[in-house]
């Protein structure tokens, strides 16, 4: 079990170390992950710990909580999330285009123009259909 974990860690480590500079990312990730762990552990030694049913009730403006919050209800921004996914993917596609824009020249500009135009048509459609309304 431990051996398998060590092996997979080494394999992942090798992948990371092939790209120069990314070993810092891994180390920094570990150090940063320690921040909340350390903060909460330190607090657990210092803080009082009292039990009581009343203090563990859910807060609802001083009233007895009515029902749970885990119910089915209309999350209004479902449509926003859909439109977001489309445009976020678009942005990711545009990043390499922008970085290499110097070498690509006019043709790539026209291509990106067409690409964005297609997505803008989508945005206009979503707008007209009322997908971007909160109410």
């Amino acid at each position, binding site marked *: 079990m431990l051996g398998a974990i060590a092996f997979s860690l080494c394999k992942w480590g090798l992948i990371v170390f092939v790209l120069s500079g990314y070993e*810092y990312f891994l180390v920094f990730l570990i150090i*940063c992950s320690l921040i909340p*762990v350390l903060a909460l552990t330190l607090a657990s030694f210092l*803080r009082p710990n009292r039990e009581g049913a009343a203090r563990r*009730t859910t807060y609802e403006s001083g009233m007895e909580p009515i029902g749970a919050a885990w119910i089915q209800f209309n999350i209004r921004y479902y449509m*926003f999330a859909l439109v977001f996914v489309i445009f976020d993917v678009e942005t990711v596609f545009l990043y390499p285009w922008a970085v290499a824009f110097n070498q690509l020249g006019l043709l790539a500009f026209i291509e*990106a123009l067409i690409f964005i135009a297609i997505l803008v048509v989508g945005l206009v459609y979503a707008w007209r259909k009322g997908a971007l309304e*909160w109410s």
Partner: protein
Amino acid sequence: MSQGIDLQSSFVQLLVQLGLPPGAAKALWMPLPMTLILIAATVSIFVTVWLERKISAAAQQRIGPEYAGPLGTLQAAADGIKLLFKEDIVPAKADALLFTLGPAIVVIPVFLSYLIVPFGQNMVITDIGVGIFLWIALSSITPIGLLMSGYSSNNKYSLLGGLRAAAQSISYELPLALSVLAVVMMSNSLSTIDIVQQQSGYGILGWNVWRQPVGFLIFWIAALAECERLPFDLPEAEEELVAGYQTEYTGMKFGLFYVGSYVNLVLSSLIFAILYLGGWDFPIPIDWVAGALGVSETTPWLQVVFAALGIMMTVLKAYLLVFLAVLLRWTVPRVRIDQLLDLGWKFLLPVSLVNLLLTAALKITFPIAFGG
């Protein structure tokens, strides 16, 4: 363009001369800048909280904190220590695992983003190729933590706050990423070092603010919304949602949200300074200063002075923006959720798309002025 001082290679060389293998020397170097940055980031929380309270007080003609330490400078530290001693309450109906994981997921990516923040030519933890893109990727992890803590609290206010945080953050991520894209296009690189270098050489006139007048406004508005600063602090709007996703949190877990939000504010200001205000670059080109002093740019003591001034310059620019954010907090009223989404989707998104295409068109027409 001088190379500037390179502490890492000097350090590694020194250790290699002492007889260590290069790999071990590099491994010894690694934690140094990271610890330094994390300490600086932690200190920046105290500074920012103190500044925010003092500036808010001045804006409202109050005195603000004054008892803890000289001029109340230790007030934030006192509050932090108080939070350490507070009881940690997990509501009986809550999902305990997600409840604890939420604040951690909010804090980790914010600190992790300091990986790519440069304070000088070689003063960055690592100059990786994806650079600024890493920040954009990491900044979209934070709302997952907010959603997690909002859902796991099993409280109606928390749930609504968490959902709002997610809606807000996805709406403003697009204008943010697109305005960064325009800068990336001008510098032909995602690396933060390259982005600053592309702006240097002409002093204040070379900075991206002049070439991206629309872009920097979009970035600033979107960054404020991502940080949940006051014109856009709907997820924790205290008048309607008690405290949003933080409602059920106490003690250090509550503190972690605050740490996350203040570090995020400083981080966004730093990124703004790097993208649009020339990072560590001086308002007057340094070769002019060196020329006026009558010394070569590569003189060792001058390089040390310039490196130190460069760090100060970056921090100064960032804190100018923090000051602006605090002033905005007391001058702009909070928007409604539908106004917020309208601003993001129906105004900032089309404008940032146009800004991007305009930058591309200008780059083709005037390649010299736009980093061709």
